[in-house]
């Protein structure tokens, strides 16, 4: 029985998908060993050999192409490397900032400008070199974060040197810069930074369109809901392209940006765009918080979006606690208040258990 190499036959895959495939193989091997031990399924020696050879070949190919982790020990090492990369990126970025500030007063303006512009470009070249040398992209990721920090430094210091007032345009530039690295090298942290920066830019522009100064963007929470909506649209777009990791990040950030402002709007209705009195606006957001929070939990369970389900579930619980505090704290004895919260938590648990059972029944 000849089996074709999965890697050769399959469409192009990402490193994360390759890692998932490796994990599947290990799970299959573990389960097959248990089935054989229980005498439920025993493959003939020929079948066993063919399957083992096929999997060995697949693992070798994936390891060569993507440098995936083939054992639990390798996985733990990878986690350590990720943490080390992050620490390195933060420390190197701080070093770049402090190094420049330590010497910038000694440099003439043209030299300052050249250095500021060169820093993100040179680090960007470093990202490309690192990405070509190692498939795991740890160094590329580290350098990409440093390049991003250098670009933030570039525009911030340029504004200082030429006495430019703070502008939201910087966030757009930083966001695009982060997106370039995110899409070119499939770096999720850079995607997160890009979404954050562009989200802030959208909220700032919308705030300034109302006549307020853009720095008041955090006093206009609904603007972030609009940015969150756009992130959700991007998530749907990536979903159609079967880009699981980026879809997940867009979706998670999108829902957080949509749900979190409801927290604040349900307390300070006067910050809403709704042409209603602050109290009515607050009540509207009370209702929206529960309806939308529960709706997202329901959809996330049905579609098996575990991250979204966790985030929206957490939102729902915290929102409920906040509202119970608003409504009951002044009127109920403390023991009764906490009893109420405990009762609600038990009720929620029951509802979620029911939803889970239904999902299992549906298969």
């Amino acid at each position, binding site marked *: 029985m000849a089996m074709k190499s999965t890697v050769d036959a399959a469409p192009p895959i990402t490193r994360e998908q390759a890692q998932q495939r490796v994990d599947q193989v290990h799970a299959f091997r573990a389960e097959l060993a248990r089935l054989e031990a229980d005498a439920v399924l025993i493959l003939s020696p020929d079948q066993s050999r063919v399957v083992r050879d096929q999997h060995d070949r697949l693992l070798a190919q994936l390891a060569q192409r993507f440098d995936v982790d083939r054992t639990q020990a390798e996985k733990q090492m990878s986690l350590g490397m990720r943490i080390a990369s992050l620490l390195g990126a933060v420390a190197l970025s701080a070093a770049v900032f402090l190094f420049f500030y330590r010497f910038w007063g*000694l440099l*003439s303006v043209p030299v300052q400008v050249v250095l500021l512009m060169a820093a993100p470009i040179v680090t960007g070249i470093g990202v490309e070199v690192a990405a070509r040398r190692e498939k795991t992209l740890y160094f590329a990721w580290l350098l990409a974060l440093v390049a991003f920090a250098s670009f933030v430094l570039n525009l911030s210091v340029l504004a200082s040197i030429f006495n430019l007032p703070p502008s939201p345009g910087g966030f757009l530039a930083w966001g695009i810069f982060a997106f370039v690295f995110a899409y070119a090298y499939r770096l999720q942290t850079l995607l997160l930074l890009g979404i954050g920066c562009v989200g802030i830019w959208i909220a700032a522009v919308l705030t300034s369109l109302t006549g307020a100064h853009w720095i008041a963007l955090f*006093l206009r929470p609904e603007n972030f809901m609009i940015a969150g909506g756009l992130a959700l649209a991007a998530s749907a777009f990536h979903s159609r392209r079967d880009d699981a990791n980026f879809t997940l990040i867009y979706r998670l950030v999108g829902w957080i940006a949509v749900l979190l402002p409801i927290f604040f709007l349900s307390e300070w209705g006067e*910050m809403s765009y709704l042409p209603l009195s602050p109290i009515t606006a607050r009540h509207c957001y009370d209702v929206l918080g529960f309806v939308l929070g529960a709706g997202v939990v329901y959809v996330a369970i049905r579609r098996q979006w575990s991250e979204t389900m966790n985030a929206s579930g957490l939102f729902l619980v915290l929102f409920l606690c906040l509202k119970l505090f608003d409504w009951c704290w002044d009127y109920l004895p403390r023991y009764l208040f906490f009893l109420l919260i405990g009762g609600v938590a038990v009720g929620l648990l029951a509802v979620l258990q029911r939803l889970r059972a239904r999902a299992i029944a549906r298969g």
Partner: protein
Amino acid sequence: MLKRFLWVIGVVLVANAGAFAVVVRNSNGAPDASVQLTEREMWLSNVDTDSTGMTLSIEWDRDASNDWFDRAKLASIGFDCSVDPNAPGAEVHYSGRALLPRTTYVVLEYDPNRGVDAKPPGNARATEPDLANQASAGQPGRQRVPEYEPRLRPVDVGNDRQALRAKYADRHRYIITSGIVRARLFQARKPFKVDGTIVGVLPGELYVPQQLQATMLASLGKIGNRGGPWVPLMHSPRYQVTVEYGSGLLPRIVEVKALAR
């Protein structure tokens, strides 16, 4: 690789070019204003071992009367002041949206003769270095000395820059700059009122070019920096700074002089 590289360079170049375009446009044409300020109005804000860059923050008299910044003036720059502050529901109206800060043009008047006749308070018999040292040590309760107070004070705001310049034509006395303003509702005593306040000017800090930093440092002498803009000036100003506002209202320091003390 080339495509990725071009994207990175493209983003960096476009963003920097955008900033330079603003700077170039600002330096085209005659300056909008040119004033000579001193340490009273330009406070050295950062000189330490971790940063060799030097910036001066613009300070104005925050206690100056702002009777001119009334409800009508607020309405003229876009604040929704349609509700009488004494009417029912005024508190709700002025509690959120109506109070969000807005950007507008602020006119700062520079009066070089301000504080000339003022006498230092009774405890000002101590020597200037003593006072400065106490001030930089952050001792509470230090009184501001009127003759060392900032001589810049806001006198008007508006969204029409040309109209403001026509009204305040003296370019050596009146600075027009972008600023952030906000409305305040006063309900301490009747009749209630709404007025405006200047939150900040944009930019609030000016970079001291490298070639001028030596003069600035020399002027500070033994007393050194005063420890932050929150410490009142307790001695006569030590430096004079010529600030030029370009046609785009971006300021730049063009000259620094040490003042004889």
